[in-house]
């Protein structure tokens, strides 16, 4: 495998307070032209900036992995779209990457977070991998999971929203 070794989790990589929307924009910018050229409608519903404690480059890397998977999943469908939606509630921010696929089977779902598991055709499954993405997000105190309630295919990244810094008075 060409990409068995990854640079995604270098020791001591700084966690910082960052807008999650900014991380998404960086990943989207690298993917949007490809989507447009191939007739995939990439739609963003990002709302106002929400800051979380994270490693921005790693969040961007995970978003790119999810967008890449979504692109590969819809490219052969007649209906091709990918949505990235941010939702904040109860000090939790969720970023959902939803595509026009009809979800994944329970059998695949049980394996999809395992290392090296892929449903992609030979030669197309060398990406970051959901298991590594999940590990990266969990190392930043977040969660990555498949949302089986969604009628389409939806992966969710969830982070606690960082408390605003309180200034001491007096």
């Amino acid at each position, binding site marked *: 495998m060409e*990409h068995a*070794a990854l640079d995604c989790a270098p020791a001591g990589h700084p966690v910082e307070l960052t807008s999650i929307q900014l991380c998404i924009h960086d990943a989207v910018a*690298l993917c949007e032209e490809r989507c447009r050229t191939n007739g995939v409608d990439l739609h963003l519903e990002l709302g106002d900036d929400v800051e979380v404690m994270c490693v921005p480059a790693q969040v961007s890397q995970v978003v790119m992995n999810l967008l890449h998977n979504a692109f590969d999943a819809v490219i052969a469908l007649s209906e091709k779209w990918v949505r990235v939606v941010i939702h904040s509630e109860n000090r939790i921010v969720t970023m959902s990457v939803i595509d026009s696929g009809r979800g994944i089977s329970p059998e695949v779902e049980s394996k999809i977070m395992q290392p090296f598991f892929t449903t992609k055709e030979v030669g*197309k499954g060398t990406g970051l991998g959901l298991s590594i993405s999940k590990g990266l997000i969990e190392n930043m105190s977040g969660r990555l999971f498949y949302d089986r309630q969604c009628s389409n295919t939806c992966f969710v990244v969830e982070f606690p929203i960082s408390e605003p810094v309180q200034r001491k008075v007096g």
Partner: protein
Amino acid sequence: MSILKGYRALVVEDDADLCEIVADDLRMYGAEVEIANSGMRALEILTGASFDFILSDMRMANGDGRFLAQELLKLDRVRPLLFMYSGYNDITESEALTLKIERIFSKPFKSSAMVEVIRTFLIKRS
């Protein structure tokens, strides 16, 4: 869309998703593309194949962009044109000139604009 048709490219990137995306983008513009996940791996590939240009990430494990550029200077045959991209200010203009890096693109980049620049250099070289 086939403005890179007839050109051979080597994409060097250790982020597997970005590597596939960049490689697919270049293929979309007609280039024939091979990929490497590090500067070291790129050098191995270069011993047995020739390319018109290399498009490489700057920050990588196992041989970063600077290492790759330095090693390319030692090649005793026509070197591929070398392009890099980075999300950081990793290298000064004068160092890039010394290392014969034709252009450093800022990440995130638009592949269409990047391909236009690469094509201009390729035409100029031929």
